[in-house]
């Protein structure tokens, strides 16, 4: 029991630290691309602490308060069901009691909790943002899960541990053995990280409205915290599935950072898409590739 508690706290702490450092890096990176100095790498930590220690928080009814709590609980549960290390007793959380499909569904608990809270606030613009978010989710989930399903078919299991264990060395990484699955799911994965160019849902400047419009003070802090932790959990999941997992913490940081850098590079390079353009894009390009992938890798041997 003590092992589980320490392990869970370690996972959460690591996700949090990695989360604010990665986002801090992203702000620096973005600034340098735009020829600005940008804030410090620790800026996200400072911002988060500032929110969490605000004295005033306005709520719009009980559901508005419980929504962020549901989102946070969903995020923590997700973190605890993703195995962070391979061949280790540590940083495993409760991942032996879960599987890949469960994790993918846990990722969606957050948006739904958010939707309840925003609906309860009574701000129509917030609800509009939620609808946009759910629409984007509908677009990205199909190719995302199809890419992961290709991996599940390849290894004939839905267990993240088993998929990780099968990737013994670089040549056996799923990135190498099943590149088409990686290509199919990588863009939807970026969208699930709320990364540009798919971030019109909560875009900070252009769109006044969005899912976060009514949240303030400590509730905003909670939302920011869970977002950073969730980002890391998703990165680790993809590293587990395609980059062979990691046996040490340093390897884990290197691999997740590589994925994050890829996301950041795409984000800074492309202009933002509207929601329906996003959905249409996902259903044409990544899904089309996925269909080709299915025909080429699953149908072609014609069992």
């Amino acid at each position, binding site marked *: 029991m003590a092992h589980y508690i320490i392990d869970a706290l370690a996972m959460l702490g690591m996700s949090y630290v990695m989360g604010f450092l990665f986002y801090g890096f992203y702000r620096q990176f973005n600034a340098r691309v735009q020829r600005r100095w940008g804030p410090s790498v620790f800026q996200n930590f400072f911002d988060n602490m500032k929110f969490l220690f605000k004295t005033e928080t306005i709520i719009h009814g009980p559901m508005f308060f419980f929504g962020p709590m549901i989102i*946070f609980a969903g995020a923590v549960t997700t973190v605890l069901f993703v195995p962070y290390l391979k061949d280790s007793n540590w940083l495993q959380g409760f991942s032996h009691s879960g599987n890949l499909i469960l994790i993918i569904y846990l990722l969606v608990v957050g948006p739904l909790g958010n939707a309840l809270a925003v609906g309860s606030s009574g701000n129509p613009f917030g609800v509009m943002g939620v609808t946009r978010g759910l629409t984007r989710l509908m677009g990205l989930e199909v190719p995302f899960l199809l890419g992961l399903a290709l991996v599940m078919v390849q290894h004939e299991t839905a267990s993240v541990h088993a998929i990780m264990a099968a990737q013994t060395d670089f040549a056996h990484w799923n990135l190498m053995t099943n590149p088409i699955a990686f290509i199919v799911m990588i863009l939807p994965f970026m969208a699930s990280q709320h990364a540009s160019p798919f971030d019109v849902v909560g875009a900070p400047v252009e769109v006044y409205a969005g899912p976060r419009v009514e949240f303030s003070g400590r509730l905003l802090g909670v939302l920011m915290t869970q977002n950073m932790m969730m980002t890391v959990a998703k990165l680790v999941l993809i590293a587990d599935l395609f980059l062979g997992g990691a046996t040490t913490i340093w390897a884990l940081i290197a691999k997740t950072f590589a994925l994050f850098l890829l996301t950041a590079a795409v984000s800074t390079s492309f202009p933002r898409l509207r929601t329906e353009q996003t959905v249409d894009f996902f259903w044409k390009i990544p899904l089309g590739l996925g269909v080709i992938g299915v025909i080429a890798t699953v149908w072609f041997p014609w069992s």
Partner: protein
Amino acid sequence: MNLITKLLFLGLSFTPAATFFTWDGAVAWSLFNGITLSFDLTPLSAFFMLLLAIGAPLIAVPMLREKSDESAYALYALLLLGMQLLLLAGDFIGFFIGWEMMTWSSYLLLLRSPRTDLEGAQSYILFNLASAFLLLAGMLFLYSITDDFRIQAVDGLLTADKLVLFVLFSLAFLIKVGALPLHLWVPRSYDQAPDLFSAFLSALMSKMGIYGLMILPLLFPDGFSEISGRFLNGPVAGYVLAWIGVITATIATFKAISQEDMKRLLAYSSIAQVGYIVTALGVGSSLAIGGALFQALVHTLVKLLLFITIAGIILQTGHRRFTDLGQLISRMPISFFGVLIGIIGLAGMPPLPGFAAKYLMYVGLIEAHWLLLLAAMILASTASFVYCYKLIYGPFLGHANSPEAKTATEAPWQYLIPQIILMGMLVALGIFPGWAIDVLIDPVLIGLNMTPIGAPTWAQLSTNYGGYDGVVLMSVFATVFVLITALFLLIRGNMHRAASPYDLSFCGEVPTADTPLHYGAGMGRELRRVPLIGWILRHTTTGFYAGLTRQTQAAAGVIGTLYGSNPQTWLLLAVLIFAVTLTIQSVTGA
């Protein structure tokens, strides 16, 4: 007198439960010419009998609140009798009698609603009679080639005969489950039926179609592959069935999103959810059939819960459209939790059993390597989040949009009791998915001669593709939720409620009571801009049938031109055909 009638009716609603618990041994009743009517409770029919046994009393309780209505009670009695008869039947004669009793009594019940119009009633009876006659044709065809009405494996038949049987029976049952494009009667009747009877239609009667589809594997024990060959890891006939299911699910989901009436939305969502079951049945492996059964169970509970809750809202406010409701969360908190648990089950989110059902079906599709079907199913299942959200936002969140919504009170206790029972059942099933597998689903699979799925403990759902532990999941989630809420409240700082519901950030302005703030019915309208969804929503099934009529008439016109008005041409043609036939016969020496 009134009270006694009501008590009798309540007792009546327990008859499926009584049958379920007390039935032992088969009953055979000899008719003429060596044909025997046989009745027995097989594991498969016991599963569906259990659904009926759960559902019937839960719908009867809120019905007791209304003025006692003897003729409706009598029709319910007939309906329950018919459904039990068809579940118990061991041969197609009993099955057909039960099916007809169910069709007619439900039709008469539907007619008793003041909202039912001619179109709704006609489409209900026409489609259901078509289903019954297809069933009749199927069973008579079966009798003509095997001299037997019993529901058992047919072997030693020609492939063509099997195909005919398969098509007749599956069409009959697909009408009942409302597969596209045979679903026209579903939204109309679910919408127009008395509010509580809609729960019966959606939760219980649609399952009879599923039961029908599930006796098909009994007739074709090799899982359809004999009819049509195999594709990847499944039969081709099943592949077609699975696509029918998933297309139904996808289109019905988008139609559900665009509805502005709560009951119509639920009707389309029923079509979609039952579509998943059809898909899983098409896969036909033990995992997928297990998933189909699980989904049937969850869908029954969820739809009972949602329809009863919605009936309560309609009773208290008199409104059924999303535009007319809003902000009921503080006035109807228990109903809010009813809908919340209902939509979580409907969307298949993890802690509740909807996820277990989805998981089994997904894994079944992955095991069969039918990934394109999986992608389509994920599309339908993710899109369902939008209508689930609409269902909870419209009535409960946002701003109250009508005087009734501003003053409504919580639904009467007769409505709340079934809701609370159903919520408890759903949560318990979510924590113990292994129990459902072990106790409810595995016996059916064994009865169908399939490998049972098995569960190491009641908390675990386990497949050869991996599984999950419901207790761990629920306790982690609950612990974190409690801890974070406590921690949040302990940190320094004030939290207070906004001074008025109009205290919003609203483009720098202050909205007033006249500002339209409820997003209700508009939700999902912008989805039309996505080309695929826009295309689906622009086309209707009525339009499809109209197009079919036009095309048929055009084709008939073209064929008609072949027949000239000149009788001499006809005569010439007849002589020519006669001559050609004779020549061929003499050449082949027949």
